Structures are given as C-alpha cells and as structure tokens.
C-alpha cells in the first residue's frame, strides 16, 4: 500500500496493533492482508461469473461468501510438495484459499477460459477444480465427498514420517456429509492406534443446491458427528476472519502436534447461489463477509479510501488477467488423449509404455 491505511496520508501513522472480534484478535496489518485477499478472490469470482454469462466460459461455480474462512485457512497452510508439507483435498469453493496460498489470479481465469495454459487441468475441468502438485493440491472433483475418502491416505503417509508436522486438510460442504465417504473419513482417520493428522473441514452454507440442510439433516451440528470417534472439533463463524483464523490455528496446531484428527465446521455464506446453473445471482439475504469485515476495519479507523483502493486494484489485476488469458492458446484436438497414462516402460506395458495413443494396435 502506498498511503497509510488509517489516515490516507503518506505520513507514518500510529496503528492500533490489534483488531478484536470478541476476545480474539489479530494485528491490523494482518487483517489488511486478509482483507486484500478476500477482495481479490471476490472480484475474481464476480468477473468469472460475468465470463460464464457472456460466453467467455461455460459453467461457473466458486466461493463468494466463503472468503473469510478460506483466506484464514490458506494463510496458515504449509505450502509445498510431498508429505512434509500439508495436503489439500479441496472442495470447489476454495479459490480464496488458493489466492491466500499465493496462486496468481490468472490461474483461475485460465481454467474458466479453458485455455491450454490452464495449469490445473489443461482446459479440461470446471473452474475452481484446482490441481497443483507443487503445493500438494489434489485434483478437485465434482463428485461430492470422494475427497474425504482419500484424505486419510495422504495423512497416513504424513504420520509415518518422523519429525513431520505436515497435515492433511480436507474440505467440503455440509450436504455432502450425508455421503458414506464422510463417515469413511471419520472411521479411517481414527483407526485405533493409527489416528492420522487430518483437519476435517465442513463449510456449512446451509444448502445443497436448493435443499435446506435443516430439511434433510437432524444432527444439531455436523461437527457432533466427530464425538463418537473421539475427534475434537468446533463450530466457527466462518464469515469472521478473526475467529476463523484462531479456530483454524487451533485445529491445525492440534493436528500438527498430536498427529490425530480435528474437526472444524465453519458457517459460511453462499452469495451467488449454488452455481451458474441456478443463475449465479447475488443473494442479498446472505451476509457478506467482506462488507462485515470492512465495517470492523472502518470502526478501527481504517481509511475508506484504502479499502476502495483494494477493490480498484483487484479489478485492474483481474481485468489484466482476463485480457491476457483470452489471448492464450486453446487445447488442440491432439490433447484429448494426452496424460491418460503416466509413462511406464516397454517391459512393463507393451502397448502404452508412454501415454495412451488410442485403441491398442
């Protein structure tokens, strides 16, 4: 930032060191970092919704309304490749988490625009379906809940490493927890004597597409389902980045230190409905975590101009990314079969020692 966020002046200001939410707090500087990431994620998603409506992409699904929780989580991930770092089994609403990890905006835009430069899927997958091996981001699938069946596996490998603090984080919505894979996650994360360090996250937006959670679920909190397995957990207001930050910190610390699971249920908003299939219209009945956070920051004396500047910067950044992505090459017909198989050896596979090449001949 160029000018002082409190006064708008270039002069050195006296910042209040901490911003409070109840009894929990974060340094103002960190709050501003979080705010900036939340705004960048929002502006990016809103631009991608536009792309889906103007024919520059097809389907849109994403995370507006989940920015507070996702940024708080993303900033606390130990990013890297291999079991010494954290594994991420994501849902399709985690763009803000990816930006918090350091992903450039254009990576999402490219996936939306289905370009060959889309490093997550070569223009193959829906937007928000990230895959980034260098950061242990496992390919996101649209198949609800399967990631919960896989998470104990990466966590098991992490547990086996001596002196490792790497943990596995798995995320999904509350409706998906009705799938058996969610129960599998609880069972396989708590095999007696073989508990594994997995942070089980459920972002609860109260809906599965159109079905209210309360009409098909009778458990008080999803997190209660951890109780019979001895998995500690908590419910957090996921629209409050300060509370979310500390809940995530407690959860991650538990997993890192004890090498056993922790369960976090975050109540979040869903600001544009389920996806472009339901119109991706702004839902004004839902609380907006950015507006809420900005009110707090303004109360702390942060300058409105600074906040506006963040939005403006994000728009500029996103527009540039869109412009660039739209000029990038598209996948070619010969990409269809590419990466079906990883390269083997002729003495192991006589037909496809390299990659798939069409039916055997």
């Amino acid at each position: 930032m160029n000018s002082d966020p409190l006064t708008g002046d270039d002069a050195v200001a006296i910042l209040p060191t901490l911003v409070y939410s109840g009894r929990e707090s974060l340094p103002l500087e960190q709050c501003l970092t979080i705010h900036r990431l939340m705004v960048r994620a929002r502006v990016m998603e809103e631009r991608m919704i536009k792309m889906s409506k103007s024919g520059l992409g097809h389907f849109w699904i994403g995370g507006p309304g989940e920015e507070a929780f996702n940024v708080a989580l993303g900033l606390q991930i130990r990013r890297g490749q291999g079991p010494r770092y954290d594994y991420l089994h994501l849902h399709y609403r985690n763009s803000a988490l990816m930006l918090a990890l350091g992903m450039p905006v254009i990576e999402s835009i490219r996936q939306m625009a289905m370009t060959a430069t889309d490093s997550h899927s070569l223009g193959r997958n829906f937007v928000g379906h990230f895959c980034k091996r260098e950061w242990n981001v496992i390919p996101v699938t649209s198949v609800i809940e399967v990631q919960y069946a896989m998470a104990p596996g990466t966590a098991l490998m992490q547990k086996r490493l001596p002196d490792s603090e790497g943990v596995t984080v798995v995320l999904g919505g509350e409706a998906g927890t009705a799938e058996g894979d969610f129960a599998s996650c609880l069972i396989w994360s708590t095999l007696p004597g073989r508990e594994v360090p997995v942070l089980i996250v459920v972002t609860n937006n109260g809906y599965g597409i159109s079905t209210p959670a309360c009409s098909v679920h009778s458990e008080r909190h999803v997190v209660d389902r951890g109780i019979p397995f001895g998995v500690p957990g908590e419910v957090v207001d996921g629209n409050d980045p300060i509370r979310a930050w500390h809940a995530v910190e407690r959860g991650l610390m538990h997993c890192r230190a004890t090498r056993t699971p922790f369960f976090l249920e975050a109540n979040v908003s869903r600001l544009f409905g389920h996806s472009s299939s339901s119109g991706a219209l702004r839902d004004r009945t839902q609380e907006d975590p950015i507006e809420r956070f900005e009110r707090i920051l303004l109360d702390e004396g942060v300058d409105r101009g600074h906040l506006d500047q963040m939005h403006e910067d994000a728009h500029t950044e996103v527009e540039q990314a869109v412009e660039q992505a739209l000029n990038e090459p598209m996948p070619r017909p010969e990409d269809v079969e590419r990466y079906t198989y990883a390269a083997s050896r002729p003495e192991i596979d006589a037909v496809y020692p390299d990659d798939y090449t069409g039916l055997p001949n």
Partner: protein
Amino acid sequence: MATLVQAVRLALHYGEEHLGVTDVFGEDVGPPLGGVFTATQGLRTAWNSPLDERGIIGMAMGIAYAGGRPVAEIQFCDYGFNVIDLLKVAGNQYWAGAGQYPLPMVVMTPSGSGIRGSLYHSHSFESWASRLPGWKIVMPSNALDAYGLMLSAIEDPNPVLVLLPKALLRVRGEQRLPGEPDDENELKERIDAPVGEARTTWQPRWPKMEPYFVPIGKASTVREGDACTVISYGRTLPLAVQAADELATELGNRAEVIDLRSIFPYDWKCISQSVSKTGRLLIVNEDTEVTNFGEHLLRRVIEHHFYDLLVRPRLLAGKHVPGIGLNQVYEQNTVPQLRHIKQAMSEVILEQA
C-alpha cells in the same frame, strides 16, 4: 509348483522387498487371516482395514498421492460395485490434472464363478473395469503369469486392477516361478500359515524370489493352430485349452488358443495376426453377455478383419441373468462350462466357409 494364490503372495512379497510396496491392505488382509483366499499371509506390510470398500480405494489413492505404493484388496469383486465412481476418479486423476499426479496403485480382487459362490461371490468384473479409462486391467490364468503380471502392476505408475480368477486360485502352475523352491511341500511349509494356535507365532520363511515381469498388454498363445482363433482369459482359459486339445484329437483340427492376460490394454497384434491366419474366431468369457468386453473385441475384429473372416465370429459368455444360483444347475447353465466351450469351438471350426 506354486498355486496361483501362492504366486500372488510371492509377488507381493517381492514387491514389498524390492519394488517399494508400502501397504498391502483390505478386509481381513492382515494377520491372522492373511486374506480370505490367503493371498496376503505373512506379508510385512499387510494390514486389516475397516469393512469399507470406498474407504479402501480412497485410502489407496491417498497413499499413492503421497508417494506410497499401495496394493489394496477388494475381498470379492462383487463388492467393488459400490466403489465404481471412485475407481473412475482414480482412473482420471492423471488426466484431470494434465499429468501432474500419477497414481501408482494396485487393486486386486477375486473375480468370476467356480467356487459355488451363488449370487454375491460369482460376479465378473472385467467388462465393468474395461469402461474405466486410465486403468490397466489384467487377469492371469496361471501362477507364473500371476507372479509376472502382479510385479508389472506394482511397477507401473498407473492404477492397475488385477482380477484373480477365484476358481483357479488353488491351481498349481506348470512352470516354476523364478526363485521358487523345487519342492512344493517345502514352499507350503515356508509360506503357508499354519492353522490353529501355531499361527499366532508363525513367521514365513520367504524363498529368495527373483524379478519376472509379464508386460501388460501382451497375450500368450497357449495353443497354436489354424482351425480357429479362441480368445479367453481367467477361469475359462484352461477350459478352452482342454476343449481345443480334445477337439484336436477328435477332429484333427487344431485351434489357436490365446490367453489374453490383459483386458486393457489388450494385445491387438496377437489377436489380429491370429484372426488373419484362421479367419474364424470364438471369444470366451464368463461375464454377462450384454455389453460384454468380448463385444468390443468382436467390433474391432469385424471392423479390421471383415473380409478375412470365413465364418461369423462368436462370443460365448455368461447369460444376462441377475445372478448365478447356488444349485449347480444354475452355475452350470449360466456361465460357460467345458461342454459349452467345446460345442461352440467345434461349430466355429466346422462351419462351412
């Protein structure tokens, strides 16, 4: 000679010691049982999982993502149906991420009829499996191939499904596995867990096995001939061989019998050359006949060899009924038996061109 199931066990042992296998797991796979068919007795990395096939496949994927080499067992392929979408996802992960995550995982599962398993222990899986792009699928019909295909499955960096013909698991091989002791009793003593009390303290004394890879996608021509081509695999393969031998004596016509060994990728060269030579084709398997994997092979043969065919090619498969009944009247009349195979083979051989 080792039985097919002993060969699998020896291969897994070799895999643990030399090919980086980190986990052999599934329902009842670890001690004390070592697998309902004993495929995993005595293995160092074998462990018992919860009774949850989706959890098993998810766990295998997770282990593979994080650098391990898992071999997971689905106790019977009949219980693989509730995990078909996860298998599909496992097959697409490398493609979905445009080459970022190879998934070196092996799933093994007993398949097919022949142990009086009735409705829920007699299913075949290869036709379903053949619709899972990204997977490689093999099905050995003898001990040596089981050893060699299992080692290839472990070495391959992609998901590989090893279908084990239930009916043949206890059949002894005719060829020695590399490293297998001469005396089959000695092998049994060394690697078969004793029953009863003795099992609790039992440790295997593994023979020093050697590597042997049967390439995935390579068929084996087990009988040469020019009267017709017979393609089979799994339980029906030895029956096809027997039928061919009997017909050779009775009719004097020698059928060429191909053990496909790999469902996908299949050995098209081998099929194509044989059909070009014989002009007559019979495919035999025991999966249900509607949308049967054999139909795909028929399609390719018809598209490529229409004008080479002397008579109409045929598929002999299991009946399209909901299950295989327990009374042997059902099994004998649902999936191909020796007499059906011999009958079909003689018709293909004798039909006027």
